[in-house]
């Protein structure tokens, strides 16, 4: 079950198995190719073998049988230290060196590769900025940072030597939901500019669907399915995968579709200054001087807005906008936040239908 993408394969598992000393089989006959420049997610519950598989890429775990190939070379023939210096690694709980300042943590790999500490530190400042961290955090110790900040430092550290491959082992599971979403957005943003080959391990199916170009579902050491997220949702390979994705498959699928082509409908608007004394027929959207939506008015009472649909939004957000609006009509805005049109739930469902048919 390999993904026959047009891009060359950066990492190849060829019939790889791992049996530990105590007899447990962590990975069983894994054959999988990770395409270059794409984000591949290994997903599964604990003990599914996803982390073991990841760690065989940088030889933190040695396969019992089969070959793992990175960049065309069998990893067993490469010096492990050299291999790891060329692969970025982000772990859960960051795994930062507690006794070194943030800047030195980030500069670790360049220094190990021979760069002078000063040059490495200078370069590290740029990387910190790239992951969205303030430069004044550079001289602090890890213990002084929040969980989310530590994770970002972990990512910066992995990126510092500009490795072509990035391994991420449940990097966001130790932080709360809000921070997790920010970090996920950050990864997507970075990937859009950097195009690294990323292998990302998680037990959270939603995270997998959000981030992945391809998803590999593991269970008890065996690969169950390896497909892009839409395929996974529309066509689960077996009962396990369907069950793992769980209920809400349909709703999740909506998140994967861009709302760009969605037709907008007309909505009566009222300028905010003219609100007192206005008599709309039915619901009207109140807009402020800049053209941004401020609330709804039905002739008697003013109500708050529901969620908004922004230019980069997906169908799930479009539907949510309509459902959460007091008037039943969603509000779409442009990049500057100005109101551009209404969103009708019926239009969203029509778009789903069209896609299914076409």
């Amino acid at each position, binding site marked *: 079950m390999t993904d026959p993408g047009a891009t060359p394969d950066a990492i190849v598992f060829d019939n790889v198995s791992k049996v530990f000393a105590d007899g447990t089989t962590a990975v069983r006959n894994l054959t999988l190719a990770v395409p270059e420049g794409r984000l591949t997610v290994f997903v599964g519950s604990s003990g599914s073998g996803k982390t073991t598989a990841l760690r065989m890429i940088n030889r933190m775990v040695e396969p019992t049988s089969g070959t793992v190939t990175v960049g065309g070379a069998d990893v067993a023939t490469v010096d492990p230290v050299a291999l790891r210096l060329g692969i970025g690694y982000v772990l859960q709980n960051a795994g930062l060196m507690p006794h*070194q300042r943030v800047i030195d943590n980030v500069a670790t790999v360049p220094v*190990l590769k021979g760069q002078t500490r000063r040059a490495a530190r200078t370069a590290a400042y740029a990387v910190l900025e790239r992951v969205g961290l303030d430069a004044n955090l550079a001289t602090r110790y890890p213990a002084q940072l929040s969980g989310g900040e530590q994770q970002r430092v972990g990512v910066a550290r992995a990126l510092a030597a500009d490795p072509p491959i990035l391994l991420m082992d449940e990097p966001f599971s130790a932080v709360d939901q809000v921070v997790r979403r920010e970090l996920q957005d950050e990864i997507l943003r970075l990937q859009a500019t950097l195009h690294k080959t990323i292998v990302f391990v998680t037990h959270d199916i939603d995270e997998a669907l959000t981030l992945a170009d391809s998803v590999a579902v593991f269970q008890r050491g065996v690969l169950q399915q390896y497909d892009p997220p839409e395929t996974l949702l529309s066509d689960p390979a077996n009962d396990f995968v369907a069950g793992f994705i769980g209920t809400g498959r349909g709703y999740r699928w909506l998140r994967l579709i861009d709302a760009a082509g969605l037709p907008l409908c007309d909505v009566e608007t009222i300028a905010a200054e003219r609100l007192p004394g206005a008599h709309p027929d039915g619901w009207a959207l109140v807009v402020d001087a800049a053209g941004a939506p401020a609330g709804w008015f039905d002739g008697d009472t003013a109500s708050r807005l529901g969620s908004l649909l922004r230019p980069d939004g997906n169908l799930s957000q479009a539907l949510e906008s309509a459902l959460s609006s007091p008037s039943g009509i969603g509000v779409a805005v442009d990049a500057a936040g100005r109101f551009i049109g209404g969103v009708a739930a019926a239009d969203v469902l029509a778009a789903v239908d069209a896609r299914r048919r076409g």
Partner: protein
Amino acid sequence: MHYLLTHLDDARALTVVHLRLALLPVLLGLAIAVPLAVAVQRAPLARRLTTATASVVFTIPSLALFVVLPVILGTRLLDEANVIVALTSYTAALLVRAVLEALDTVPATVRDAAAALGYPKLTRIMKVDLPLAIPNLIAGLRVVVVTNIAMVSVGSVIGIGGLGAWFTEGYNTDKSDQIVAGILLLFALAVVIDGLIVLAGRVATPWTRAVR
């Protein structure tokens, strides 16, 4: 007190000898214990053998070691070398245990991360494991140093030198003020050196004091 003030030269000379006898073994002991501990930390059989041997060595009272070593080494009883070897063995044995425990406290996740980043083994030990083990090691080091200072004064009963001479002399000549002076001076020495070790530990571990 009065005795101390009137015998300052004597005090200085004896203190130098005492500190040399007490502290040199600590340095030598560390030089032996640290590499040894690092080597056996992850080798279960070698580790058990080493800790067992160390246990036996530091269980033997130093006074006994002072007496037995001349037989093995061919030194004379009161040779300074004899005392240094005896105390070094004792200190090294104690420190091996302490260093092993300190190394064990380094979190597994940090070690794992270091290996995954591409740290070669020796570099990792020098730059990650040992620095992180320092706080725990300091605690053990303090006990070892203070104990050694006391050990040297016990050795004065067989005449090895150091401030313990004031105890034996004072006892034999019925001068209690000499003994008191010795007690005070040794006490002060131990406290000062203990303080210096704590200070050195703090300087070496700035990250433990960083406040959120």
